[in-house]
């Protein structure tokens, strides 16, 4: 593995200052994505700052008003099995339990999960194939290469990669906020604004700036939280990234949808919220699958397939429909 120096952080202010001053320093928490990237030479930091020793950053607080505060250093397993997370937001527990493996969920932090980088095979390739994320200006090997796993929404000619996080899809649907601390204090970033579309600068994947540290995720209370579901389709039954996934949460009046939260994974460079479909679904009966499907289609007018992934346009609509129906059964 590429050599680096390792430092240990004991205090968040000092850690943030160190990160701000040093463009070759990276934070490390669980390490399950970062060490793989270093082994694949997709990123080569000179220094790693181990933030696992920072105090009070692994807490999971179930707020009295119905929301959650999840510390950035909480592990995926701890969040997934937390009784109040399971009860208030099953979509979060399911998104986590359908991710990775038992071993990785015990290691990986929540802050790291939403920072994880794409699984595009060209980006990860040790042979350094053209990739504008890896080496800006080198081209995109996936644009006209093997792109079955790539995006149908939000891609550009310089990058067609998808975001691999399942949790991020659930958090986008729930309008979570990312709480970030920098030298001048904290800011709260709405989840849908946290990840960027690639445009002409795909190497910049989030709005985080150097010298900023994710300290927590805040999930607001929502009437749809309890009737929620995460549905993930993949090429094997378990321990695989999503081909297409959907997070759905609903509130109902009888069998009619009163309000809907719906986001897709595996189809875009960021969690893809289906806002047009959400609006169109309001008032539709859960017993009318045709009407549900037509409302979901409202968000697919701007879907653009690549050479090998046109099937995702139909698949994603069916996954969204099924997720919605299962969430509806929980209402």
């Amino acid at each position, binding site marked *: *593995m*590429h*050599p*680096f*120096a*390792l430092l*240990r952080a004991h205090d968040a202010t000092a850690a943030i200052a160190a990160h701000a001053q040093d463009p070759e320093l990276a934070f*490390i928490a*669980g*390490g*399950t994505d970062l*060490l*793989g990237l*270093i*082994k*694949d030479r997709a990123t080569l930091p000179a220094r*790693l700052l*181990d933030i*696992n020793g920072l105090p009070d950053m692994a807490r999971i607080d179930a707020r009295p008003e119905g929301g959650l505060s999840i510390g950035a250093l909480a592990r995926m*397993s701890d969040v*997934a*099995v937390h009784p109040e997370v*399971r*009860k208030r937001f*099953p979509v979060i*527990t*399911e998104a986590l*339990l*359908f991710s*990775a*493996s*038992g*071993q*990785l969920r*015990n*290691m990986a932090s929540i802050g790291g999960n939403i920072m994880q980088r794409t699984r595009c095979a060209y980006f990860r390739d040790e042979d350094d194939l053209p990739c504008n994320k890896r080496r800006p200006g080198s081209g995109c090997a996936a644009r006209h290469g093997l792109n079955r796993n790539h995006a149908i929404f939000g891609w550009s000619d310089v990058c067609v990669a998808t975001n691999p996080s399942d949790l991020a899809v659930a958090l986008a649907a729930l309008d979570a906020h990312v709480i970030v601390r920098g030298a001048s204090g904290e800011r709260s970033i709405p989840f849908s604004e946290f990840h960027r579309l690639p445009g002409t600068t795909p190497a910049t994947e989030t709005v985080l700036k150097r010298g900023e540290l994710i300290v927590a995720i805040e999930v607001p209370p929502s009437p749809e939280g309890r009737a929620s579901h995460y549905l993930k389709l993949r090429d094997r*039954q*378990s*321990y695989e990234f999503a081909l297409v996934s959907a997070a759905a949460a609903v509130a109902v009046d009888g069998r009619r949808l009163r309000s809907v939260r719906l986001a897709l994974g595996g189809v875009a460079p960021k969690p893809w919220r289906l806002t047009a479909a959400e609006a169109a679904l309001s008032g539709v009966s859960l017993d009318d699958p045709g009407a549900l499907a037509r409302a979901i289609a409202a968000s697919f007018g701007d879907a653009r397939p690549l050479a090998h992934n046109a099937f995702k346009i139909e698949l994603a609509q069916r996954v969204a429909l099924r997720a919605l129906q299962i969430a509806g059964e929980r209402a």
Partner: protein
Amino acid sequence: MSETRRAELGEQRVAVALTVNGRACRLAVEPRTTLLDALREDLALTGTKKACDRGECGACTVHVEGRRILSCMTLAAMQEGKQITTIEGLEHDGQLHAVQAAFIEQDGFQCGFCTPGQIMSAVAVIEEAKAGWPSAATADLQRPISLANLSKAEIRERMSGNLCRCSCYPNIVAAVAEAATRS
């Protein structure tokens, strides 16, 4: 690499104190040394296997503070003060752990390369079920799970992070089920 060569490269050595299988160990490792490489190369505990080295196969599974993790995806220097258990730490006074015995009884391996990781994972799977942890195969997230409802589907899902290229999966599932019954 010699110490002189390391010094020429200006490589840092990090002092780390760990407890491995109940024994206190002090190491001076390069920062980039994974826990896996420290166990195998520095402590000569070669029971833990190195296969993919990318967190994809589970062969390097060990326990840190009683939880299963992948030793290839963490740095030794990040484990300061931690209690680590490897496959060598399961047997006591010549008595195999119930999961080890069940793997022999059920013929849960062929070449054996993935077996230490499978067994370390299985020991933790049983503890996670005892603690009521649900999995992606759990039908109702609101109801606590116990060892009594650790079905074959549950075992398959919970063991999915451990690959076996000889494909002994049916016997591995049987071994975990047997060990769970005995626990």
